[in-house]
């Protein structure tokens, strides 16, 4: 193996691949990266046997070959490399990195022991804009349940229909649903649904392109799913992310979304965010804030024996009956940070039914949250 690459490119590749490696005691090879030199490309792969990431970067290849090196160490080293061309080659299982004034050797392992990342049939795929998926996922990923008691909800639910995608996450206390309408090319010609583990989803958000207009492809098999991004101005893949799907059936979450409401209020979002944050400070351990809906305004109250108490109010357009409901203020904030519109609608079903938060004038996002019982 022998190739020359810009240090910048190498750092980029390590940034994408290194994160999922960790301390794996049963199979230490997983703490490493597989570096392969292919014609015109360098390829770096990593896996934790749940997710596998492969990254390709342009380079000048002199000799093909491969080696396995410790991930954390290599990325620390790359962080200190100067921004210039560097030459990388191997001598047996040792990796040699050489620059203008640099000469290093890293002890590695044979690439034969590195797990093989599953391959996909690349004929059938779904194609859509990467940025939209990235934004959509960011707005729901935090609502995923971290508990493994109900594995079905420990991931984000993807549902591809004709011309739209729904992304859903819930931890049984709140639920977020994002609908992305896009010019989606679905070659499967049927509905595709799967549940992606939260950890993978976070990685996916990390690798999806930020620039507008860049397409990505999604491949799908019975138990695995793969996301592919492309090198700029090229049809060659830049990153392939392969993940297991969560086995199981996602709960029929539509039943949770309330269809009617007893009380509906329209609020200025920024003002509401400020007030909820302030009230939250007095929420104490329970994070409880009480929202009281009047005729033309709402009051937000919170109190804690040890901290003190606060009483805030703000104007609102209200409809339906007046009510008093307690919520965990963090759950409310989680919804508000993902809403971009200046006004929000807040629909309440009394103090033991689900409440619905939506941006005004935007039907693509909705958030259902359960109150705290009073």
């Amino acid at each position: 193996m022998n190739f020359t690459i810009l240090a910048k490119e190498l750092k980029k590749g390590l940034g994408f691949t290194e994160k999922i490696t960790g301390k794996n005691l049963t199979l230490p090879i997983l703490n490493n990266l597989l570096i392969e030199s292919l014609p015109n490309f360098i390829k770096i792969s990593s896996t934790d046997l749940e997710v596998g990431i492969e990254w390709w970067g342009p380079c000048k290849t002199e000799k093909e070959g491969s080696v396995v090196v410790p991930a954390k160490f290599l990325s620390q080293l790359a962080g200190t490399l100067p921004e210039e061309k560097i030459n990388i080659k191997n001598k047996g299982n040792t990796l040699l990195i050489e620059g203008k004034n640099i000469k290093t050797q890293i002890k590695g392992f044979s690439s034969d022991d590195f797990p093989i990342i599953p391959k996909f049939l690349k004929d059938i795929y779904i194609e859509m804009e990467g940025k939209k998926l990235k934004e959509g996922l960011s707005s729901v990923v935090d609502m995923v349940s971290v508990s493994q008691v109900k594995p079905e909800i420990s991931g984000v639910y993807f549902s591809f229909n004709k011309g739209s995608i729904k992304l859903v996450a819930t931890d049984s206390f709140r639920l977020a649903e994002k609908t992305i309408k896009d010019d989606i090319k679905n070659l499967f010609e049927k509905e595709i649904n799967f549940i992606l583990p939260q950890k993978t989803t976070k990685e996916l958000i990390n690798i999806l392109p930020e620039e507008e207009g860049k397409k990505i492809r999604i491949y799908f098999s019975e138990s695995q799913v793969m996301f592919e991004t492309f090198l700029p101005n090229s049809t060659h893949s830049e990153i392939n992310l392969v993940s297991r799907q969560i086995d199981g059936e996602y709960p029929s979450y539509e039943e949770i979304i309330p269809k009617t409401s007893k009380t509906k209020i329209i609020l200025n979002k920024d003002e509401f965010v400020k007030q909820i944050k302030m009230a939250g400070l007095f929420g104490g351990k329970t994070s409880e804030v009480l929202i009281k809906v009047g005729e033309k305004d709402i009051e937000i109250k919170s109190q804690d024996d040890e901290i003190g108490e606060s009483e805030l109010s703000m104007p609102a357009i209200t409809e339906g009956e007046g009510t008093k409901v307690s919520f965990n203020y963090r759950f409310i904030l989680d919804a508000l940070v993902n809403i971009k519109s200046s006004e929000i609608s807040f629909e309440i079903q009394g103090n033991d039914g689900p409440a619905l938060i939506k941006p005004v004038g935007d039907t693509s996002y909705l958030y259902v949250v359960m109150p705290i019982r009073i």
Partner: protein
Amino acid sequence: MTNEEIWQSVLSQIQLNISPANFATWFANTAISSVEEGLVVVSVPNSFSKEWMEQKYHKDILKIIKSIDENIKDIKYIVNPINTKIPTKKTIKKEKEEVVEQLGFSELEVDKETNLNPKYNFNNFIIGPFNEVAYAAAMSIVEEPGKNYNPLFIYGGVGLGKTHLMQAIGNKIKEDFPDKKIRYVPAERLISKIVNAIRSQSIEDLKKNLREIDVLIIDDIQFLAGKDKTQEEFFHTFNSLYQKNKQIILSSDRHPDNIPAITERLKSRFNGGMIADINMPDYETRLAILTQKAEEKNIGVPQDVLEYIANNVQKNIRELESSISRLAICKKTNGNKTINIDDAKKLLKNIIVSPNKITNYKKIVESIHSFYDISSNNMFLTSRKKEYARPRQIAMYLLKKELKMSYSEIGRKFGGKDHTTVMHACQLIENSYEENDKTRQEIDLILQRIYSK
């Protein structure tokens, strides 16, 4: 040699050649799932293992298997995800339940297959004279589903524990007979399922589906009133299950005879098994429930406060629970001060002096229409048909009793009837209310409707 033995010998030979870590990673949870015409299918837990086996160990495995059975030509690997589901642990209740309770989506607790919510079980079901008949019937069903009381028909007012009891039966049967197919369906859901099935022309599938069930539980069967097609489908399902000695459990807010617009043949079938009613709990039971709830929430409430609540909250169990929750919140916000009787009186004002004890003419008339499922005009006609006359008499009785309207005013409302006619009607219903249990139930239910809106 069985498949297991073949695979065992493969594993023991492979183990000699590779490191324990590799062996544990790649060969855990693998097995031969089938052997057919020289093709061995090996199931592996994930795609990584599959790739690894295919590319690294395929030759070795094939060689070993061939040495055991010469007819084997090839091996195929399939991914068969192992069920990572943690066996549903009995939720260990924390010693001290937080007074503040973050509510969750109850839909997610529900078992997908049976539609039962595990939170309803017999351990937290309180038995008293008001529900002991229903409970006894439930216990005998749990022992031998389909044998003794089939169908079991439970009826009673809102918030008295019908759903709890039915779901507890389902959960218990599921626990004792894991092979039995149990399905809990609220009647409303059944109706929408049948409507959808008709629309998508998949009614046969639905029928087949329903008839394979061992224990069918249908809640709030009174909603089938007037839904003729659903009734017909349900009738056939009912018969087919009944003939096969499958257990059927139904609930309603009233006696089958009092459900309007249900075909006679269904009614007679509902009446064919065991009919058990759940009444309002008596004072002692209410007190027992309160004591238990207070203990569950771990709040010390003085006896006189509990007695006060038991005396004044009489309507249903749900309200008893909410009274206790209110006390718990108050106690928490006031720094664990013990609640005395005056605090309780103030706190529970809303529940006890129910603000919706006020009603009006329109509410009463509407409730009667919907209860008897008759259109609004028919009641005011001078028709003497029994199905109109009786609701009319009850309407007169309620208008007199609840609104204290004068006889002649009531008469005017009903198309200029003489005040003596109204007096007669009121007297008739009043007597019947005293003497006849069925009438009393009917009127209590209507009253509940009037005041619950």
